[in-house]
């Protein structure tokens, strides 16, 4: 209810600037390809993302598959889920890529969510996205004891879907017209250790609409 928004928790979100998670496309700039050097990894320091990184991720974000969100979006993630927002830095303090996500839900749907993961073209094809994803899964699993991790991906983004499948994600359900009311999204999930029976990833039989989503 409207007025609860004004008083809930004493924080007021500017009415005009709604933070809509729904309209946010999930961005993948990383593509799995067949010519991977098996298990080769890039020397990398992965650390928590901080505000100053916003001023340094230009070359990553100019890439057209990577969305540049508004400030309150980034900062809300930093303020609420700092453990789910990591950046990979290479030699010469260059930003290689980053992942942002959150943890939410109730009961058995308590889960980690990947909001965006992106890798600069210079550092692609080196399994960095995998490393970042694994980190988020680890945190969801070990620190927050979540049941699963999920993410949304454009139904047309075959390379990304393939990559997530390689990382152990399955298509849980299709979300109709999730992306700006046009393209369908796929909700992909990976069960974590707490979900012993892997109940969370049993695919739904029918597609859902965005307003049926429990969390946006």
């Amino acid at each position, binding site marked *: *209810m*409207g*007025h609860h928004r*004004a*008083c809930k*928790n*004493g*924080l*007021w979100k*500017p*009415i005009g*600037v709604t933070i809509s998670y729904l309209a946010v496309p999930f961005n993948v700039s990383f*593509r799995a390809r067949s*010519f991977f*050097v098996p*298990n*080769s*990894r890039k*020397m*990398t*320091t*992965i650390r928590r993302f*901080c*505000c*100053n990184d*916003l*001023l*340094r991720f*230009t*070359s990553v*974000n*100019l*890439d*057209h*598959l990577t969305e*540049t969100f*508004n*400030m*309150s979006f*980034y*900062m*809300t993630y*930093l*303020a*609420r889920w*700092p453990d789910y927002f990591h950046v990979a*830095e*290479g*030699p*010469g*303090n*260059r930003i*290689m890529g980053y992942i942002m996500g959150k943890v939410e839900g109730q009961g058995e749907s308590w889960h980690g969510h990947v909001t965006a993961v992106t890798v600069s*073209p*210079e*550092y692609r094809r*080196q399994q960095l996205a995998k490393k970042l994803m694994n980190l988020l899964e680890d945190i969801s699993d070990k*620190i927050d004891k979540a049941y699963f991790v999920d993410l949304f991906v454009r139904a047309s983004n*075959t*390379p990304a879907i393939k990559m997530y499948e390689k990382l152990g994600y399955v298509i849980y359900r299709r979300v109709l017209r999730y992306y700006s009311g046009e393209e369908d999204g796929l909700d992909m999930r990976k069960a974590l250790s707490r979900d012993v029976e892997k109940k969370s990833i049993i695919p739904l039989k029918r597609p859902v609409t965005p307003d049926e989503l429990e969390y946006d």
Partner: protein
Amino acid sequence: MASKFGLAGGIPERRVRPIWDAIDSRQFKNALKQSTALLAKYPNSPYALALKALVLERMGKCDESLSVSLQAKDLLYQNDSTLMDDLTLSTLQIVFQRLDRLDLATSCYEYACGKYHNNMDHMMGLFNCYVREYSFVKQQQTAIKMYKHAGEERFLLWAVCSIQLQVLCGNGGEKLLLLAEGLLKKHVASHSLHEPEALIVYISILEQQAKYGDALEILSGTLGSLLVIEVDKLRIQGRLLARQGDYTAAAQIYKKVLELSPDDWECFLHYLGCLLEDDSSWCNAASSDPIHPQKSVDCKFSHLTDEVFNSRISEASTSVKKLHADTSVNLIRCPYLANLEIERRKLLYGKNNNDELMEAVLEYFLSFGHLACFTSDVEDFLLVLSLDKKTELLERLKSSSTSHSTESIKELGWFITLKKIQELIGNTYKLPVDELERSAVQMSEMYCKSLPLSKDLDPQESIHGEELLSMASNVLVQLFWRTSNYGYFMEAIMVLEFGLTVRRHAWQYKVLLVHLYSHLGALPLAYEWYKALDVKNILMETVSHHILPQMLVSSLWVESNNLLRDYLRFMDDHLRESADLTFLAYRHRNYSKVIEFVQFKERLQRSSQYLVARVESSILQLKQNADNIEEEESVLENLKCGVHFLELSNEIGSKSVTFNEDWQSRPWWTPTPDKNYLLGPFAGISYCPKENLMKEREASILGVVERKSLLPRLIYLSIQTASACVKENFEVNGSICDPKVLSELKYLLDRYAKMLGFSLRDAIEVVSGVSSGLNSSEAFGADMVGWLNFAVFLNAWNLSSHEVVLPDVNGCRPSTWQVVNTLLKKCILEVRSMESLVCYPQLDLSVLVQLVTEPLAWHTLVMQSCVRSSLPSGKKKKRSGSADHSTSPLSQDIRGSVQSTSGVVEEVAKWLGHHIKKSEDEKLDAIFSSLEANGRGEGPGQVFRLLGTLISSLNEAELGDRISQAMKSWSPVDVARKFVAGQRAGLSAFLRICESKIKSLQALKQQMAQV
């Protein structure tokens, strides 16, 4: 609270809900109707008033909203029986915040807290108010009260954060940290700590006081278990030990981190730093800029004896070997790069010659040379080699790579790396022209040859070898630099446009085109490409520098306005909402983020670009309205007559301004306002001279903006004095100019002159020297516009002060009017007739635009002010004595100046018209003939022709459908046409400005005729 009983601010919820729903769905009219009805029923309810105020504000009726919300506030204060519930307060708070009256919101909460002690909701609200106002001391006091009342850990940490903020961002002394430490210690003793973030804050408090030992003790005690991620804990431990000076222990810790995460590069550097007892990375951390980390070549180890150095290095080598062995299957790169770092340190210590380092680079190259990041990985290591050694290294890399040609993608990778290293080394300026040409051809050939590799890629993915075309165009730019043959420029454009035909998402190409088109006078086209980069939100802060400086000195006022408006809106929005997000971090107990958010907000607030944008957007408004003095005056009024900017200008020197631009994305050759590499050779530079020039550039940006921020005030004062001088002259009881205005104008002129590098008296001599022909305009240096502005304001001041006595020239004493007339004419016609305007590049066009839209425009305002004051005012009839106005010396001066100025603008307009009318075919011919083969197979056009051949012989099966189709659509004629149209659009925009000026000057002439 009230709402528990289904009441909202004392009103049943069912009555309130529809209003909120209407607000949420933006049906404000409906909301207003309902809230007015509600108010009729509850006329004394502050909540009902607050709701109405909220609706009014959302409808844009700010004045009404303020008065209604003040009523609500008064009611709240007056009526003791009024329910002072949280809902009413928070609603009022929203309204006041939106009305930019944080102080009122705060006072409401202060009142509420004073009235009802120990109400946690109110205190929380009050704390939030102080967060919004950045009142750290009051935040602290409120949080302490809450802590005392509720005893919760989080409120204590709120207080501790507030203390830290006082030290880091306010003017609190470091002694305060002792207080914070004491509070924490006491709490820990009785309650321990339960949140990892609380521990991190505790440690940072100790670290800030250099109590590393205490911090380490806490970390290794029971509290340490709060940090669940082992590596995180170890990293903190390592840092504390190193800062304490216990390098041996620190090295051991870092070694452990490396064992857990073997490819953590930063950790390896710390490890090696500790072994060699080099504290530079710890000491510099505080002073260095986190956005642009300094590339440091130096390391500190002179204090180590030979023996110690040797043993430490061998220890490092052993560890690296072990890493190699442990990870050999995984092919982890850190150990390889670690070898490079070890060799680099040895070289710096004087332990080896260059060969070992080169050997290590070579080894690294053999394993990883095909990767796109190879060059940036080794960049820092090459810094320590001499140019000769670098060249030698390149040769060795080349010969070693010939043995590798197993896989085509890898082969391509190696090829690119070699070319990139060549660019990085920076010796291309020494290569003969034909070799450079060959290099560009090779790169483009390789690009084409590799296209089939990208056959199956998603259209959005980058193509294999995409960098090659950017590199080829960089070489072509360099060829222009060497030969001044503009065909290379056209070729560079063609290459990039071709690349964008194949894949339209390549942002690197777009950035290069933005600069090339700007440089060649097709700014509208450059702007198009800039827009195609989709720069938004925080990227505006880091990327705008590619286009903004050119736009600000151009005739594209609408587009410049858009750029500035979007950017300023972004910044202002962030600065407004940042405090709310800080409070969010408080609430979610992410205390380290609280500090980070406040520091980041300060960083953006002090951004140089933000400063420039604020000053420039006002100046742009002044330029746009200068043809009409009334409109100009209303702009000035909105700018508080320029007083605010004056204050800003005073502050610039004392403020630490931040520079957040991302220079990495900028090609080395791009001209910046103060440096244009394309105008002359700079020995030794062919790649990234960015770092060296950063400080220079920063100082110059500040100098310019400091001076520009004086402009609005100078313009305002000039209009004042001009008008006063006329009255003084013509009216019997004419008011003389306010001496305050005169003295302020003199003071500002003095400052302005100083910023030009002269005393007032010397500056006057410079302008009169140039105007009399004693000196050429070269005396103005690069800043002709600045000098002419000075002359214009000098004249305005002199109208009333008559202090300036110009030196005799051939027996007559010129007036300041004449000086301005001569200078405008001389400089504008001089710039206009420069060769470079007709051919390329068109850099001087921007100077011409500035001369017309700044000094000439300001001078026109002075004349408008004079004429307006000499006109018979209102219905007052012409006095009998006024007939001789027209013959007074002042009238003659004004008349002469109007005549002269309009003559100059007409000349410019004529010239522009001539250029705009030139036929397109003629221009296209010129472009394509510059790309034609010259018979000897050299010169520009080789790459261009290569692309043509490729398309005529393309193999669709090999390239795949998508790439073939894209290539078929390639049309060089369209590119050339767009370019010509872009140039023309820029000139036309300028012509429109001139025409408007001519019109306004004509109107002025007519008005004078009436006098």
